[in-house]
């Protein structure tokens, strides 16, 4: 059996190899998005192949948790695919610095992206961009429309309204006001701190000031979100300390909770699970009329293996990924993952469209801890998880948390010393 398969493999290679010298090329894509396999095979790849006869594309994903390790060993052994799906920030930067990814700064299509979109796949000085931004996720709150109508609560836009809404649900008692747990820790940081935070530190302004060392984690702008998180604890369900991420998802989609602090990646899953109408609102601002800031976090990019033998074909593919045509297909096939190109895209899913509409009203930023700041030990992102949980549980005061994080960051990050 094995031998037969081996012979077959040899024969296929023998047939394919000569064709590589002709105009035809076969591109292989490495990815961790095995959830998206059918989407690539049924929609994205056929669309590309129709427009570019002569280039064949294979999408070969591996499991998300194993991706980094698998990719590293494949790159080391020289057996990695031509195109490489890029994790944001340091994981991909390390690949670029090790010479595994090609510098794509001179790709024309790069002009379709904003600087924030490109920041996840650039060298620290911004001189080289090595992956084409593919998708981002937006943070906000998903709510149960029927619950809001039943209890007679308006969709909040300011923080005061937000807590008034939570109070109303708590008083009514038929719904858990907000579905989130602290057992898995990351939700508290990702859907808590980095969701509401940008309104306090004014998005990119604060984030860049933190990187340059002009602001500190002990500043009011960085500790105030912890003070707000500390008020959340009272509105989470009983025993939220041991509530896991899937627990929270189930509680909300079963219709037992009114509000779910979310990332837009939940959209397609929730659409399948919930049988009530859902809406989304953006992180509430402090006072009506304030500029709003949203976390529009760069999540997926795609780059080129420096050792690829099909460099021309790979560049053709990357240019196409940067085009509005790809953006349109991708956004609608995978509602909740939003293309990053500046060209406007029509999104048909109402919930996803609501998320993406905030891009026009608000300033976009990315999660504060992802660029540069989580490079050393202690790891700022991991510490932020712990700090956000401590804030919600009320085991530490916001000032103590700021102090602790600042000490950790300053211990290895020169601009903060």
């Amino acid at each position, binding site marked *: 059996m094995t031998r037969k398969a081996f012979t077959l493999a040899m024969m296929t290679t023998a047939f394919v190899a000569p064709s590589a010298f002709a105009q035809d090329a076969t591109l292989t894509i490495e990815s961790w998005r095995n959830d998206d396999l059918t989407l690539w095979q049924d929609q994205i790849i056929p669309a590309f192949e129709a427009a570019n006869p002569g280039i064949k594309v294979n999408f070969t994903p591996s499991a998300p948790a194993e991706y980094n390790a698998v990719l590293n060993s494949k790159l080391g052994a020289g057996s990695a695919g031509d195109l490489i799906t890029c994790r944001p920030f340091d994981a991909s930067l390390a690949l670029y610095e090790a010479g595994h990814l090609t510098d794509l700064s001179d790709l024309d299509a790069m002009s379709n992206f904003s600087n924030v979109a490109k920041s996840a796949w650039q060298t620290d000085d911004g001189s080289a961009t090595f992956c084409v931004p593919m998708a981002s996720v937006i943070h906000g709150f998903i709510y149960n429309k029927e619950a809001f109508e039943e209890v007679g609560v308006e969709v909040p836009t300011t923080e005061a309204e937000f807590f008034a809404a939570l109070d109303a649900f708590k008083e009514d008692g038929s719904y858990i006001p907000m579905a989130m747990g*602290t057992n898995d820790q990351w939700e508290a940081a990702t859907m808590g701190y980095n969701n509401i935070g940008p309104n306090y530190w004014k998005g990119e302004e604060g984030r860049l000031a933190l990187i340059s060392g002009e602001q500190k984690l002990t500043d009011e702008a960085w500790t105030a979100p912890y003070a707000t998180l500390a008020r959340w604890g009272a509105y989470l*369900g009983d025993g939220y300390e041991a509530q896991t991420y899937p627990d929270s998802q189930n509680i909300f989609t079963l219709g037992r909770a009114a509000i779910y602090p979310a990332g837009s990646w939940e959209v397609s899953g929730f659409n399948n699970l919930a049988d009530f109408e859902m809406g989304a609102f953006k992180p509430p601002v402090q006072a009506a009329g304030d500029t709003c800031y949203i976390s529009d976090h760069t999540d997926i990019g795609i780059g080129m293996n420096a050792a690829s033998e099909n460099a021309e074909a790979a560049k053709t593919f990357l240019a196409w990924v940067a085009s509005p045509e790809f953006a349109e297909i991708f956004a609608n096939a995978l509602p909740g993952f939003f293309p990053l190109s500046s060209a406007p895209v029509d999104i048909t899913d109402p919930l996803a469209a609501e998320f993406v509409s905030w891009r026009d009203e608000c300033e976009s930023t990315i999660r504060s801890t992802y660029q540069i700041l989580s490079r050393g030990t202690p790891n700022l*992102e*991991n510490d932020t998880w712990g700090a956000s949980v401590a804030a919600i549980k009320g085991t530490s005061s916001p000032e103590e948390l700021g102090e602790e994080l600042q000490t950790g960051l300053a211990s290895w990050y020169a601009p903060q010393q």
Partner: protein
Amino acid sequence: MNKPRFRWHILVFLAPAVIVYTAVMIFPLFNTLRLALYSRIDQERVFVGLENFRTLFFDPIWAEQFWNALGNNFWFFVIHMLVQNPIGIALAALLSHPRLRFAALYRSAIFIPTILSFVIVGFAWKLILSPIWGIAPTMLDWVGLKSLFAPWLGKEEYALTTLALVSVWQFVGIPMMLIYAALLTIPEEILEAGEVDGITGMSAFWKIKLPLILPSIGIISILTFVGNFNAFDLIYAAQGALAGPDFSTDILGTFMYRTFFGFQLQLGDPHMGSAIAGAMFAIILIGVCIYLFGIQTRMRRYQL
């Protein structure tokens, strides 16, 4: 006189075991220890001597995590010694009672969790103790003790003890089986001789059986020690690599895993990870040596 022939067959018969053991155990062990002496600086692997260990023990950030993990590990071990082994011995004593009915059934039922995967045990207990869907709060409610329920796995002060008790539940079958086997080897004559002298019931257990099974208890203690200081799976399955809440369930195994392989945005550092693995190895080695030379050699043995 003939020179004695070199006995080749000894080498031939030893070879497979030696080669396999060296390849999969001895070489990786020493290579890990060697890895701990290096560090990666600017894409280059550099020999740094004991620098990684200095960082681990004296750098305030690393040391705090290390001592926290070590302290948690000791607590994990203490719970096993205080709960698992006495219960195991008690169960074995009950099972070896000649008039107990359904002994085989109890024995299998208690032993079964031992053969379950950590992942299943971790996940099942997480569900049982879940404040939302779990049966633990419901069952406490039936007997009117709902107020005693707390989200144990989510509270810093209870999480580690809870997980240690879950582990005890899983592994109590091992000491039970070993002690049970030891109890069965005690000859009837000795017990009968004791009975003639008026030693019956509980005092027969304390005065005759317990001294005779002490060596087995020693072996169990050392197995528990090694097992607990190598533990990782249950914590990882139940609480994840960050061993929450707030590192309160972090033991050496999870600390090593997080450092070696990286976690989320934290990139893996095989060299520091190896240093932690080296420290674990040293701790276990010292513990085993203390037992072997300090306790085992002084233990009184009885010829049966």
